[in-house]
């Protein structure tokens, strides 16, 4: 069965590109959970908003100038999407979570669920519930090699996603381990109270976490908009749950964990739909989430926290 190799190669590529998107969103969950121990249920919607703002900007830039060079349109869309989505990330935290700091565990979680429903319908109100299609700005493949008669290819947009995810992940890990704000984040994730006592403005650190999460989700949203070519107000929901699964699989709270978790989930899902009937793909993904949380809630790279009595 030597022709199995190219099929596997293609499926691995599919899995990597899918996993990179999950990783980009998973970062938002991991950082927020790592620092204030809360699942930002509305994070999937922040990703969706990033995609919408990206498409609006592309359409505006595309329409306005017509012959604007591709690189400019793309970078313009990324910048504007990042700025606006970061503003959403900051506002969601400021409005829905900051007033609830210190209240019992269920309260911020329910507020997050409410915010997720609100954002979904807010965008639906503004842009309608229908699918918005994105013109293929970057058609064509990065490479298309013929392995024993089977075309193995990686499209430009998917290559861009994998590359962007790697670059952002490395940059973020360096920033967190090197910079002052990075140190403050790590301090807060160890012990928020003590960090506050030592003069760290914890509110600023928390806002920073949400903004960084939103920025990465925005990049993910714009790139997905380009590569998949179809967005609607509901794409954030399932993508959000899958990204959370990736974050937990990798070990919630650990940034490399989010990357590892994302890729693993992407590969699992891809091989599930390759070898099982495709409709069971999501069942496998959700099943994986339930299994991880049961047998290894701290994930692969996470740090176990002993339940203090």
């Amino acid at each position: 069965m030597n022709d199995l190799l190219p099929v596997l190669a293609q499926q691995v590529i599919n899995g990597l590109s899918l996993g990179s998107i999950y990783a980009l969103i998973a970062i938002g969950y991991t950082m927020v959970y790592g620092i204030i121990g809360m699942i930002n249920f509305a994070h999937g919607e922040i990703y969706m908003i990033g995609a919408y703002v990206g498409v609006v900007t592309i359409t505006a830039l595309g329409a306005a100038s017509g012959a604007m060079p591709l690189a400019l349109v793309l970078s313009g869309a990324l910048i504007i999407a990042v700025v606006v989505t970061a503003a959403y990330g900051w506002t969601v935290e400021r409005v829905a979570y900051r007033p609830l700091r210190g209240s019992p565990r269920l309260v911020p979680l329910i507020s997050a669920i409410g915010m997720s429903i609100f954002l979904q319908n807010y965008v639906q109100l503004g842009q309608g519930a229908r699918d918005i299609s994105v013109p293929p700005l970057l058609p064509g493949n990065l490479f298309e090699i013929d392995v024993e008669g089977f075309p193995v290819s990686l499209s430009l947009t998917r290559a861009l996603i994998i590359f962007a995810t790697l670059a952002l992940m490395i940059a973020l890990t360096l920033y967190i381990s090197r910079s002052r704000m990075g140190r403050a984040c790590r301090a807060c994730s160890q012990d928020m109270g003590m960090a506050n006592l030592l003069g760290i403005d914890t509110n600023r650190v928390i806002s920073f976490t949400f903004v960084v999460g939103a920025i990465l989700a925005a990049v993910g949203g714009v790139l997905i908009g380009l590569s998949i070519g179809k967005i609607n107000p509901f794409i954030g929901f399932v993508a959000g749950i899958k990204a959370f699964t990736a974050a937990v699989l990798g070990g919630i709270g650990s940034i490399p964990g989010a990357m590892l978790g994302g890729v693993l989930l992407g590969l699992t899902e891809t091989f599930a739909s390759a070898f099982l009937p495709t409709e069971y793909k999501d069942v496998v993904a959700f099943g994986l989430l339930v299994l991880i949380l049961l047998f290894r809630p701290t994930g692969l790279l996470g740090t176990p926290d002993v339940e203090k009595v």
Partner: protein
Amino acid sequence: MKSLKTACMAALLTAVLTLPLLGAHLVVNGLSTTLVVNLWPVGIAVLLVFVAQLLDLKARLGAITQALPTVSLSSASFSRHIRLWLAVVLVAALIFPFVASRGAVDVATYALTYVMLGLGLNIVVGFAGLLDLGYVAFYAVGAYSYALLSQYFGLSFWVCLPIGGLFAATFGILLGFPVLRLRGDYLAIVTLGFGEIIRLVLNNWDSLTHGPDGINGIARPTVFGLELNRRASPGGTTLHEFFGIPFDSLYAVIALYLIALLLVILTLFIINRLVRMPVGRAWEALREDEIACRSLGLNPTLIKLSAFALGACFAGLAGAFYASRLGTITPESFTFIESAVVLAIVVLGGMGSQIGVILAALLLTVLPELARSFSEYRMLIFGLVMVLMMIWRPQGLMPATRPRLELPTAEEAHQ
């Protein structure tokens, strides 16, 4: 008067937020996607935020809602009248279907179904403090159990109702076991995953559940053996033939309403008793502090499983009734949004407060029906209300109050 600076900052932020999403409207026509710019909504939003910041509305609104009177159910005056109040409400509920219009009765039946779901989820979230986001799964199990039993074995509604409740309770325990050791938010996500898995299985298992086509031709409940349809099934007699009156589908609507009312009364009766029993107190103790429970000899596993099983059982009953009322069910009506709506009901009503949950269920189901054109904004308002409630009134509209227990006088006490 908050400083002008913050008001301007807030207004600017609102502009940045709303411009791309509300200001520019994406329109797809055929090949090209174009932008229709309409700055009105952006202008209104910016103005609103500016004024709100200027008058520091947020703090004022917060104060007002705080001051809302909390009717403490156990205050002496109220409890004496509780029997009277219950009687009045019950009589009104019984008369209602015969005087109200058909549409109103149908909406009321729909609302009563959500009252049952709300009361059931209130056990899990309100009393035991376990945030279950997959509650719709038990609703689906109840509905499909009745649908399948009635289709394959022709069992009547009244036989399948308890079976549906039992099946759902079993699934409740199945879900309960794996999540025993998990904390609040992990538990929420696992139950969410579980809910989605159930829906996907229902949608994919074509041989049993006919997948997306769902199950059609589900029999309506019979009233004392009399069928509610226009034409009797072989061997059965219909209500109107029995009474020799011309067929009017209003009878079916009224009968369904009364069955729903019966189920709600049954649910309320059982839950009210359970809460005053050791198991009910154990639920609340678990919510308060699981470690303390363990140190006093209460087995947290049994407490959690009993909460899940009972919450699921009532969802199962509601599901079986829903299937009998609609006559046809598909996996599409058991999505996560249902779980979120029932959670919103419990949260809005006041976690752990039965009266609050009932009021919230009526409010959140009747209001959107009242203004059908308004229903587009229904989910938007749900989400917003959930956020605002958590900020201003986490205890809910009608918060539960502790029952007063009269202590026997000192002489009777002996040890």
